[in-house]
């Protein structure tokens, strides 16, 4: 696992204020769920992909290609169990349920892609300060930021310890899923212990630098809304209004679909 998802690029989306990027993500999350019909989801998905291309961030999807493949294949089959229709194909599949599954899978992949683009274009610090400026208490923001930073380190530690144990003859690759999980548990314990043990030192270091001394704090990283941010927010507002209007008018459904 690489140390961070953020990609250091100089694109339009990278330069946007983190608050704008958070709002883009939230609006995407809302409007993509409006429609059942994959043909109606597709334009939103295309816009998200276009955003990924412009932000030069789609390369990060490689990291989760296996997850996306599993979600897509299993989703295409499983979502058919949630729906039915009039036009039978075979077994549990009908034309309508298949269209529904395609729509659901497309929504899921669009959500994942939008989340990944956000993480690829926004540094942890920017993400957290963006949320703080949107009203999140800075102590909570600090905890989230620290956790985000520590996750790759802890995952890397787990893999290093696992490799060390493998070199001593521990077989981690055989057995069923439960047996494998059991084998990993003794490897995780030293990682947790070493991580938790640093709490006191970490705390002293923070307090020595004045963490929590004042209710209001200043930030080294300063963020400001630029003209481009307002244009993007305006664009998102227009998109939100149009998609909501179309949803209310009943567009985007699958004719003949029976949902359970």
């Amino acid at each position: 696992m690489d140390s961070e998802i953020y990609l250091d690029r100089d694109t339009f989306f990278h330069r946007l204020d983190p608050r704008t990027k958070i709002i883009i993500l939230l609006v995407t999350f809302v409007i993509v769920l409006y429609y059942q019909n994959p043909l109606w989801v597709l334009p939103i998905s295309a816009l998200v992909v276009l955003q990924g291309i412009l932000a030069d961030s789609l390369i990060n999807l490689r990291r989760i290609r296996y997850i996306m493949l599993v979600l897509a294949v299993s989703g295409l089959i499983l979502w058919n169990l949630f729906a039915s229709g009039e036009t039978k194909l075979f077994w549990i599949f009908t034309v309508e349920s298949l269209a529904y599954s395609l729509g659901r899978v497309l929504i899921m992949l669009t959500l994942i892609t939008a989340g990944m683009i956000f993480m690829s274009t926004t540094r942890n610090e920017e993400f957290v300060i963006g949320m703080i400026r949107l009203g999140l208490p800075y102590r909570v923001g600090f905890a989230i930021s620290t956790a985000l930073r520590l996750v790759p380190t802890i995952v890397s530690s787990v893999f290093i310890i696992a490799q060390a144990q493998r070199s001593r003859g521990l077989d981690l690759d055989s057995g069923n899923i439960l047996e494998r999980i059991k084998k990993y548990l003794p490897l995780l314990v030293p990682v947790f212990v070493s991580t938790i043990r640093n709490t006191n030192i970490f705390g002293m270091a923070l307090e020595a630098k004045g963490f929590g001394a004042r209710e209001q704090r200043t930030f080294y990283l300063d963020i400001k809304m630029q003209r481009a941010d307002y244009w993007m927010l305006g664009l998102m507002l227009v998109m939100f209004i149009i998609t909501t209007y179309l949803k209310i008018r009943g567009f985007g459904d699958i004719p003949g679909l029976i949902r359970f």
Partner: protein
Amino acid sequence: MREVFSMWKNTRMIILTALSAAIYAAVLIPFKGGIPIVPGITEVRPANVFPVIFGLMFGPAGAWGSAIGNTIGDIFGGTLGWGSIFGFFGNFFLGFLPYKMWGALGLVPANDVSQTINSWRKLLAYIIIVIVSAAACAIIIAWYLDLAGLIPFAFLSVVITLNNAIAELVLGPPLLLLLYPRVKQWGLIWTDIMSKEDVSPGFARQLGAILAIVGSLGGLIVGVGISTGLYGQALFQFGSGAKGQVGVWLGVLPFIILIIIGSLMMSGREQFVEETE
């Protein structure tokens, strides 16, 4: 619930929140692409052992850590979506109820409230807490996703409860026995960090614990009952029934409120004991 907010004044509790979140997320992520149960919503999650353990040892920091860790797991695992919102609240209660109920159940002896399993009574308390918190987490998430029309309550609530409880029951006791002495030695048990005054005093604590049990298990049973009986969502089968019906969310809502009321009545102060050297 005073300590849930007052803990943010304490630097060590903030750090423990971050560490709990990071560890939980770090173990969740490798299993994201493993065995999905409902694609993009939930998968086999052995990492679910941690919220209850961190909740018991780190108190409110463990609860916040579980909530934040689950969201980070979704971000890094690529499954950030609508389920993440109520996943946050569900996982919060997965870490929150254990430390609130530990001393309130009346099973843990007053002369040894240490958050480890060194007696049969504590093992029994642990089992009850695991089942209740697993069910509470499940009904919160399933209630919302049923309401949103995404997954039937009957299926998801049972799956999440089992997914949580199995990991916690099988892996929890040995991990707790292994980690507790070390964490205690470093002075990082939440009762060693926070002051008693910062913790909610509660009232009728045992009754609060009972309400939490009734809310969690009652919500699960009644919710599944309504959705399988009244509206026909089959227990482990998607192909019947109706989602997002008024009966399901209106029937389960009072039980979620009951869990919250029970949580307000419980304290955690009983776990503060004077250390004798």
